[in-house]
């Protein structure tokens, strides 16, 4: 009977598929920005696309990309993890401190510790209902103090024999293994996100937390998981960093926190949650890594680099943010 009610039949749009096409187009924007950016720098500085240059780029970009991918997960739920760079830094320190105890298994132990720490921090945030911004700000401060304390504020050489670090620092087919590690990480996370209910629940929390809770999504568990993943990724990023430097330092990852937030947003992931994803993280990480070197490639004077980076990031965010899905912009 409802089929004979054209007046109340609101869902025959003038142009079928219009909304979908627009959405698809929007999803393509970050990629377009990346291609544009790479294209422009390739014109200005030829040779940037040579295999050797790209390899260098991959090995420099990998830690940042891993961080961005990790940070994306809590941001999908609408939370934010400010402790990632702190965790990446302390990873190297722990590697040195724990190596005498765990020998070849140190890397594994460190990553497990990071996962545990992240889970704890997510649990604190969700169960005690402390805003993630302040939770992770507090832990960031504690982490930096702890890593200075543990390392006695000095850079220390890594143990030579660590098999995992050596593997990460090596190349296969002339491509840095950190690049492959990033790929594997993305693939594993993508599988988890796609084929378990975790991925769906993460998006649900971000898209409408109350509705998700009322649909039986387990908030505390999920947030713990999200923060565990971001901390785990941060630890991996730390490993990727030390595989390049071969030294640990309490301030190794420094300002990568800000870059990782920029990266998440540039990929099109909304800071308010629910919009974006791993793919967005990959693209965003690449854009940010490229922005970081683009200022040098196109020959911006060193004094102008901050401004150019800031302005380019703002323009890129303007282009890549899909405002149609966000109601009130905070």
């Amino acid at each position, binding site marked *: 009977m409802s089929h004979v009610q054209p007046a109340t039949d609101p869902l025959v749009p003038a142009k079928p598929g219009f909304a979908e096409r627009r959405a698809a187009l929007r999803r393509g924007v970050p990629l377009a920005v990346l291609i544009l950016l790479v294209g422009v720098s390739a014109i200005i500085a030829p040779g940037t696309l040579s295999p050797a240059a790209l390899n260098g780029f991959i090995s*420099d970009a990998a830690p940042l990309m891993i961080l961005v991918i990790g940070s994306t997960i809590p941001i999908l739920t609408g939370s934010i993890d400010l402790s990632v760079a702190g965790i990446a830094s302390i990873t190297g320190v722990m590697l040195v401190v724990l190596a005498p105890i765990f020998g070849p298994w140190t890397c594994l132990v460190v990553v497990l510790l990071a996962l545990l720490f992240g889970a704890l921090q997510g649990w604190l945030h969700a169960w005690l209902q402390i805003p993630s911004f302040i939770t992770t700000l507090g832990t960031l401060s504690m982490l930096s103090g702890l890593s200075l304390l543990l390392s006695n504020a000095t850079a220390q050489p890594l143990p030579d024999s660590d098999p995992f670090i050596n593997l990460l620092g090596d190349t296969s087919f002339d491509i840095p293994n950190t690049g492959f590690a990033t790929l594997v990480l993305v693939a594993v996370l993508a599988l988890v996100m796609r084929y378990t209910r975790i991925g769906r629940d993460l998006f649900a929390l971000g898209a409408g937390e109350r509705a998700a809770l009322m649909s039986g999504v387990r908030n505390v568990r999920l947030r713990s998981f999200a923060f565990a993943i971001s901390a785990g990724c941060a630890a991996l990023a730390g490993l990727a960093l030390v595989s390049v430097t071969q030294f640990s330092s309490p301030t190794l990852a420094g300002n990568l926190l800000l870059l990782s937030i920029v990266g998440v947003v540039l990929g099109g992931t909304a800071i308010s949650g629910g919009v974006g994803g791993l793919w967005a993280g990959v693209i965003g990480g690449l854009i940010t890594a490229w922005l970081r070197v683009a200022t040098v490639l196109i020959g911006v004077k060193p004094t102008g680099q901050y401004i150019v980076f800031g302005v380019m990031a703002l323009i890129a965010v303007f282009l890549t943010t899909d405002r149609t899905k966000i109601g009130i912009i905070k």
Partner: protein
Amino acid sequence: MTDQLHRLSRKFWQRSLSLAAILGLALPLSQIAVAPAKAAQKGSLIIGIDETASEYWAEYTQGAQDIANSLGAKLIVVTSNYQGSQLLAQLGAIFATGCDQCALATDPSSNAFVKAVVHRSAMAQVPIVTIWNRPENIHPWDTDPKYWVAHTSFDGVMSGYYQAQALCKALGGHGQIAAIEGVPSTPPAYQRIAGLKKALAECPGVTLLDTEVGDWQETKAQNITRTWIARYGSKLNGIFASNDAMARGAVAALREKNLNGKIPVTGSDGSKVALDMVKSGDMLVTVWNDPVLQGAVSIAIAHAAAVGDIDPAKLTHAQRDFYLKQEVVDKSNVDHFLDLKAHAPNYTYAELKADFWKDSAGELPVGANK
């Protein structure tokens, strides 16, 4: 009406976005087809500095620029903002365009990144001279020795030692002082404190009340000093600041209590502001480290290796890992250094080439970077 506007703007966005995408795709393609990759200018000089808004790094750049001018070469400046990973990425971008007979003189930003920066430079076959940061156990002759030509720094232990000696003398061998340390993970920070302790061991009447970390920053040093004044009052007789910026912060805090000039403050670096304060009596001494000289010498050595004027393999350890000379500046000789500041000598490659190690203060002792 607003609906229409909305639709119009949406359409505009779609168009411009697709345009951007097409443009972005087309550009690199045209690149491959049309322009053959051209390398960066032959013989370019590259320096890596920590920040641009700093007198020290501006002068360092000036020294390198002098050499570049004398060679007619291009100077490329990379800023790390104290982030080793950023330095690595940006160096990677420069090397990506290919660099023939290039030379690099850089601060690796922290000990942790020295090996990576050296390695990256070696991969690009660019001779590199590092400054300030070098971990204890790696040296130019044992790590990528073909490209890591040399490491040069200023002797932090001596700097701290000179400062503390001056304090000891000014206090007449009796009193209590407090020390402000730099970013703890950097060699100059702990070296200077080590020098301080070494001097105090020889001056038993002066004791160290407290040590705090000021992260090289004026504002932090100011807050720390203010707290000390409140805590120790007249017990505090002198302040040892690990660099001039922190010394300036300490003097600013003292000035709030009209104690400037009454409680001696020492610093290190020899910045213009510090020289002025030494002249005015607000500061007791500073230690003159000449960044212009450092910039000129380090890039000149790297360039010499790049063009074959020197062969790293034939250099002695003392030539590959050395301190540059530094001098104590007090009220008696401050005018000389102020003059030097105002009219820095214009270094040329030819002049330095005669003896790159003319201003060396000797090899880094074992354990200096521990």
